[in-house]
Each structure stands twice: as structure tokens, then as C-alpha cells.
């Protein structure tokens, strides 16, 4: 019983960076911008956060550094894609490739260094509830932040006027422009905020989850987070659900290894990626569903001159 509780706890911890990054990308996509640079942003943020934690010893500084790194990279991407109207796919790819190279370069001095283990939060009373206690309440605060973010997003997107405007911009930037909304500025803010969240997720990986730095630390999580937004049909609660699902699959691979299952570790390591492919295929199957839920202007450039 205790093993399952621990597995659940590990799933939540593992899914949290995916959830936070996924929510950040959701914000982007609701505004109509597809940022394929998620992986690159997370990598740069991971090394920034790691370096900050290493030198300052403070988690808060590390997360701030990660958020700043993510936001900065997103700003470059946003400037190119929104103001200079470059191709969103190519520019996002450029961000990822650059981020990979840059993080590897900066991280050379940090390879193999370790940070002190982060002791999980212990909420008195709640943490002692059998099963639920160890599963839900002995976690790093970020896990709770992710859940809180989900609620905040739900309120923002569907109950606030600003959220309505954002969705309108993603649905039809031309109409929003005709009504006088500053479409490009709104998209730019969405991109930067999304980048900051991806940055927080990246810092979480290197500072809390690992906690170490190695080249390519994120191992494709940025891409999985992108797949998450489609899987979640662009709804915040489902982003979290998907994130924990993938967290679970990742944990499954370790659990199977630990249980002495006779499958090579490399084949087990394929599991999260194969799971992503399968889920993506199943969700995308229904074109009508996608059409109704996907922001209509996603990925398309916006020219205010029309």
C-alpha cells in the first residue's frame, strides 16, 4: 500500500514540470501562437536555475532565474514571429536548436555537480493521513503550485474578460484587430508569460527533480508538453491530467526495473515517448473535435494590414 502511495507521489512530482510547461504553452496557443521552442527554453532555464541555485543556495532565486531565462528566450521568439512575421514552425525549431547548444555550452562547467537534496514539504496533520498523506502532501511546493495554477488558468480563461479577449485573439486575430484590440501586444505577453512558465518547469527539473545538470537534461519533456496541449484539447484541467499520466508512465519504467522485470532498461526508457505517440494518435483522430476546440488561428501569421 505504501509503495503505491509513494508511486503516486513520484508520479505527481514527475508530472509537475510537464504540467507547468504545458500550462505555459496552453497560454501561448490560446492566443494563436505555436511555440516549438519549448524544449530549448526549458533547457536554458534548467541551466540558469541550476547555476543560480548553486551559487545562491536559494530555490526562489533559482526559479526566478529559470523564469527569467524562459521569458527572455520567449521574447526573442515572440519578436521574430509576431513583429517580423517569421515562420512560426521554423523559428520555434531555431529556438530549440539554439537552446540546446547554448545550455550545453553554459553547462559545461556544471556537469556532474550536485545540489543538496531538497527535503519535501511536510504539512503537519495532512501529511500523516494514511495513503493520501504521503501521496499528496509530502511534496515540493511546486507540485502544489502546479495544481493552483490549473485553477487560476481555468478562472482566467473562462471567467474573466481578459481571458475572453485572449481567446478571441486566438480565434480570429483579424476580428479582434478590427474591434481595436492590440492583437500583437496581447500575443507577445502571452508568449512571454508562457515562456516564463516553461522556464519555471525547466528550473524545477534541474534544481528539484534531478537535482543535477547534464547536457540535454530535459530529454524531450518540452516536446511532450507540446503534445499535452493537443491531448488536453486546450483545457487546463486536462493538461494536468495528461501531465500526471506521462509522469506515471515515466515512473512505470523505473518501477518495472525495480521489480526485476526482464526487459532492458533502454527499451523501458522508450515508454514515455511511445505513450505520447499513442495518445496523440488517439486524440487527433477526431477532426471535428479538434476543429471545435483548437484556437482557429494557431500557427498562422497575423498581418495587421488587412
Amino acid at each position, binding site marked *: 500500500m505504501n509503495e503505491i502511495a509513494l508511486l503516486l507521489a513520484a508520479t505527481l512530482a514527475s508530472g509537475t514540470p510537464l504540467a507547468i510547461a504545458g500550462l505555459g504553452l496552453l497560454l501561448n496557443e490560446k492566443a494563436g501562437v505555436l511555440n516549438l521552442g519549448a524544449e530549448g527554453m526549458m533547457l536554458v532555464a534548467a541551466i540558469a536555475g541550476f547555476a543560480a541555485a548553486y551559487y545562491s543556495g536559494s530555490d526562489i532565486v533559482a526559479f526566478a532565474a529559470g523564469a527569467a531565462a524562459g521569458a527572455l528566450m520567449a521574447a526573442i521568439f515572440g519578436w521574430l514571429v509576431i513583429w517580423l512575421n*517569421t515562420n512560426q514552425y521554423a523559428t520555434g525549431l*531555431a529556438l530549440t*536548436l*539554439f537552446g540546446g547548444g547554448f545550455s550545453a555550452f553554459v553547462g559545461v562547467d556544471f556537469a556532474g555537480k550536485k545540489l543538496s537534496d531538497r527535503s519535501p514539504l511536510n504539512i503537519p496533520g495532512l501529511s500523516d493521513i494514511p495513503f493520501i498523506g504521503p501521496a499528496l502532501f509530502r511534496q515540493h511546493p511546486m507540485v502544489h503550485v502546479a495544481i493552483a495554477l490549473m485553477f487560476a488558468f481555468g478562472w482566467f480563461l473562462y471567467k474573466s474578460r481578459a481571458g475572453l479577449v485572449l481567446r478571441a485573439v486566438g480565434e480570429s486575430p483579424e476580428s479582434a484587430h478590427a474591434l481595436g484590440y492590440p492583437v500583437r501586444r496581447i500575443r507577445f505577453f502571452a508568449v512571454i508569460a508562457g515562456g516564463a512558465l516553461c522556464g519555471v518547469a525547466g528550473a524545477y527539473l534541474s534544481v528539484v527533480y534531478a537535482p543535477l545538470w547534464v547536457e540535454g537534461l530535459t530529454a524531450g519533456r518540452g516536446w511532450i508538453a507540446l503534445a499535452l496541449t493537443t491531448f488536453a484539447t486546450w483545457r487546463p484541467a486536462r493538461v494536468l491530467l495528461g501531465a500526471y499520466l506521462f509522469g506515471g508512465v515515466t515512473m512505470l519504467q523505473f518501477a518495472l526495473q525495480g521489480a526485476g522485470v526482464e526487459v532492458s532498461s533502454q527499451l523501458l526508457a522508450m515508454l514515455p*515517448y511511445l505513450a505520447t505517440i499513442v495518445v496523440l*494518435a*488517439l486524440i487527433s483522430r477526431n477532426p471535428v473535435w479538434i476543429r471545435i476546440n483548437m484556437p482557429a488561428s494557431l500557427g498562422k501569421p497575423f498581418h495587421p494590414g488587412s
Partner: protein
Amino acid sequence: MLKLEARPQPSKAMSFASPLIALVLTVILAALLFAALGKDPLKGLGVFFVEPLNGMRSISEVLLKSTPLILCALGLAVCYRSNVWNIGAEGQFLLGAIAGGGVALWLTTEGISGSRGIYSPLVLIAGALGGMVWAAITALLRDKFNASEILVSLMLVYVAQQLLNYLVFVPWKDPMGFNFPQTKTFDASTWLPALLPKSRLHWGFVVALVFVGIFWSFLFRSWRGYQLQVGGLAPAAARYAGFSARTSLWTALLTSGGMAGLAGAMEAAGPLKQLTPHVSTGYGFTAIIVCFVGRLHPVGIVFSGMLLSMMLIGGELGQSRLGLPNALTGVFQGLLLFLLLACDTLIFYRIRWKGAPHAVVPPAVKPATPTTAKEGA
């Protein structure tokens, strides 16, 4: 202040100039980066951009490394022009190495031998098929399930890497290899014939150049190539004309998968002569940059392929001669792509000095539809 003003017609001159401007800007930023790292900027630039062309040996290395880049990029050009965003060329490359390497390994362990290179065509064909099969998975999922080819092809890269790791760590590991994750060295009969004596350069380079010609004809003179490009430029027009989007999707993915697989097999049977977890140093991803810097054009790709190959060699030289981390190459390559995309704007927009800020709304020409679009009048 500076303002961007739309050009009435895209500028052809800028199409050519843009990659060059991007390169110049990259070099400038590189110099600044060297200075920031405490190294002499001129020395750094020399090592990265000049040394690789110094002497026959270096040039042969540049040509050698450009081969997989050119091959992969040619296939990707077909994909991107068709608006099929295959970014899993790296995975298709690895599967090509696995398939070609697998054939080579089988021949070697069965003791089938012969003069150098006699069985290499077999290895290469197997490689191409391996890459095609891997790309076919992406095509199938997009065709039948409408799954994004970007994400599927990318996920398959990670799967391919793990597959390669598994093979060289477990079933294909050389029993005499001191437990290192590597296969036996392939028999000489499977190696690619050498092109230049005393260098690692092999006939694969010539094959790449031949493909440049083939792809040019395909893209710009063939009916199938025309259909693919219309599908990429205006899907509704392609439907109107009756071009099959499905055929285009499969053609694009199988072509680029085959080319990447071919490149992978060439790496395994060319310079490496065995399989290790490090068959690829990110060729599949670098090829994406090669493709864009080369303007998605077969001839441009030859030049950009050599340019990026030079940067790869430069990175190695930088490490051995100046103690700079090899990861610097990745930084420069990423920078080059970014700057290229930014400079490309100049093809469609002009920079102008404007006085007071204006709500300038130039008349853009958009698809004219009776009730669903606007036309400036």
C-alpha cells in the same frame, strides 16, 4: 524611428543576400562571444572559419562531414516545401545506420567477405529502407489519425536513440569488445570505397552531388514535384486541381526518410565502420539548419551544407587548440538560423525611417472570398 514597410513584390536580391548577411552577423556575434570568454576573437574566428579549409586533409574532412548533411537536407527540403514538418530526420538517420549497419554486421559475422566496398550498395539500400520505414510510421499516423507529424517524428527520435543504445549494449555488442557498447568492426567488403587516398572521404560525397541534380529536376521540372509544392503553398488550390494530399504526404516523408536513412548507413559504413551509440552527432537536426540556410533549394543546400560542416570541424579544432567547449558549435549554428530567419524578413519588408508614429495600414493582398475575407479597396 525605424518602421517596416511591406514591399509590393518580394525582393529576389534579398533572397540571395539574406543568408550572407546572417552569416556576417553570426561571425560578428561569434567574435564578441570569443572576447567574452577571454580568447582572442581573431584567433577564435580563424580556428572556426578558416582553419577547416587549410590543407587537403581538412578540406576532405569538411566534404566528408557535409555528405550526411546534404543528403538529409535534400530530403527535408522536399518535406518543408510540401508543408510536411518532418523534424525526425535524426531518428530516420539512426534507423538507417541500424539497418545498414545490421546488414554489414550480418555479412561480417557470417564471414562473407570480398574486395573493399563490393557489398556497400547493399548496406546503403538497407539504410535507405530503414529510414523509409521509420518515416512511414509518421506518415501513417498523420494519414490515418491526423496526428501531428512534428510531434510524432520527434518522439520517434528518442525511441530510435534508445533502440540503437539497446542494440549496441545488448544483442549486437562485440563479444571481443571489452564490454564497450559497440559492434564488431565491419568487414572491408561493406565499407564505402574511398574517394581520396589518405583521407576518410568516400564515394558517398559523389552520390550526394548526384542527388542534388536529381532533386533539382524533381522539384522544378517534374509534375510530382509541382504537385507537392502547390500542396505546400496553397492546400485549397491543390484540392481544386485534384492533387492528392495523401500521395504528397507519403512521397515527402518516404523521400526524406530514405535520404536520412541513406546518410545514416553511409556514416556507419563510411568513416565509422561499426555501430556505436554516437553514430550521429546531431546530423539530423543540423540538417534542418542546412536546409533553411540553403533556402530549401538543392544548390543552396550544397553551400550551406559545406558551411555548417566547416562549423562542425571548427568546433572540434576549437576544442583541441583553444580549449573551447565543443558545444560552442551548437550555439553558432542556432544563432545562424535565428539570424537567417530575422534577415529573411527583409525579403518581404523594407526598413524605413518614419517621423511620428503612424497607424500605417498598407493594402495587403489576401485570398478573395465573397463572404469570408476582406479585400482592401
